[in-house]
């Protein structure tokens, strides 16, 4: 399964809006994501893609746009 599409599906589901049109927008600045959303993202990555990211690995500045998240997950998968 395509990692990018899976990540986008998870993000769309979590934020309640389609993020594929704004891949470089900061999700935390726009209020679409917060700490709660981050944890949900990590849990979904674990269950859907088998990617394990411990909470302390989650450095917010490295996960704040859809593009960065996709790149990060691709590097870990």
């Amino acid at each position, binding site marked *: 399964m395509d990692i990018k599409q899976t990540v986008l599906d998870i993000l769309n589901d979590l934020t309640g809006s389609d993020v594929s049109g704004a891949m470089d927008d900061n999700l935390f600045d726009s209020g679409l994501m917060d*700490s*709660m959303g981050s*944890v949900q993202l990590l849990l979904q990555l674990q269950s859907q893609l088998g990617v394990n990211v411990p909470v*302390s*690995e*989650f450095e917010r500045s490295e996960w704040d746009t859809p593009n960065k998240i996709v790149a990060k997950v691709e590097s870990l998968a």
Partner: protein
Amino acid sequence: MLSFEPYGNPTYFALLGVALLPLMIGLLYGKRSRLYETLISIFFLVLTFGGPKWAQGVALIIYILYEVALTWGYAVYRKHQNSGPIFYLMVILAIAPLAIVKVTPAVENGQASLIGFLGISYLTFRAVQTMMETRDGTLKDYQVMTFLQFMLFFPTISSGPIDRYRRFEADYRSVPDRETYLGMVQKGIRYIFVGFLYKFILAYYFGTMLMPKLQLMAMHARGGFLDLSWPVLGYMYAYSADLFFDFAGYSLFAVGTSYIMGIATPMNFKQPWRSPNIKDFWNRWHITLSFWFRDFIYMRLVFWFMKHRIFKKPTTTANVTYIINMLVMGFWHGVTWYYITYGLFHGCALVINDTWLRYKKKHRASVPHNGFTQVFAIFLTANMVCFSFLIFSGLLDKLWFH
């Protein structure tokens, strides 16, 4: 023997300037002398914890040895094994001295614990964070000497900002190139001068000139509804201004000094009075503390709750964790009714704020958003924060129970 509060008076700054000069010349020529850095660290630690405060110095040394033993022991253990109960036990042991120091005044009629010293909470945050990252496998090569430097880094030892082991280590192991370093020095010096304005002029005015007068007036004006009066309102704003300028000023000194030492210690304040809501406020106020709570309490608890499906709805998980998180922060400030109420107040404020943000997201079309609502949001947030600081200040305790 000389003894100083860190950044407390002009002599301290003069000594700081003299001590930092050789280090600056070294960094400009691409050299970092560990020996010299260690020597001036020890010198300033002795100034802070020596002389009449030698008992605190002894407590600090014993505490450091204890935390080194725990974090080192755990790092060695974690290389081979990873049991949950051992990890929890180690965290509890690491927090135990701080817990004793915080609880002692509440059970011993205000008497301070013998094992306490200035900055014990900030050191505990650093040690616990190091342990949690070791558990996660994020921190793999724990080094005793680096850990000691990280814990005892003198510019931030007494009140933060709370750096992270891996971030500190990366800075500490490298030397910035000349252009970057000159930029850091320029910033560092500017921070220190803004700090002078904040701490020695503004905080002095609000804290030393205004607050005692307002407190006296508030005590004389007791008798009305809940003993409230106009001076209480004045005290609320003066106290909030003092708290901000005093702590932001101190933080600027600490960050500025770090920059001059070629270490980019994170900033503690980011224009907190411009926050449009409480959630944003905690991204701007005492940032390294609130981020510590976010990363090592809030997110980890949420993760645990959700993994074990404790609550049905994610929003319930978030809300319960907000309350726990802020209550812990309240208790950390001290075991008094007003600190705990302050924590509870902010926990509830975050729950209400989150509910409102969700509502706004759902009804984006019908909720007006313009210049006026923005100004109103900032005004409301600032006043809610000031009210919470009035609780925190303990003035209500004096008005009602003394």
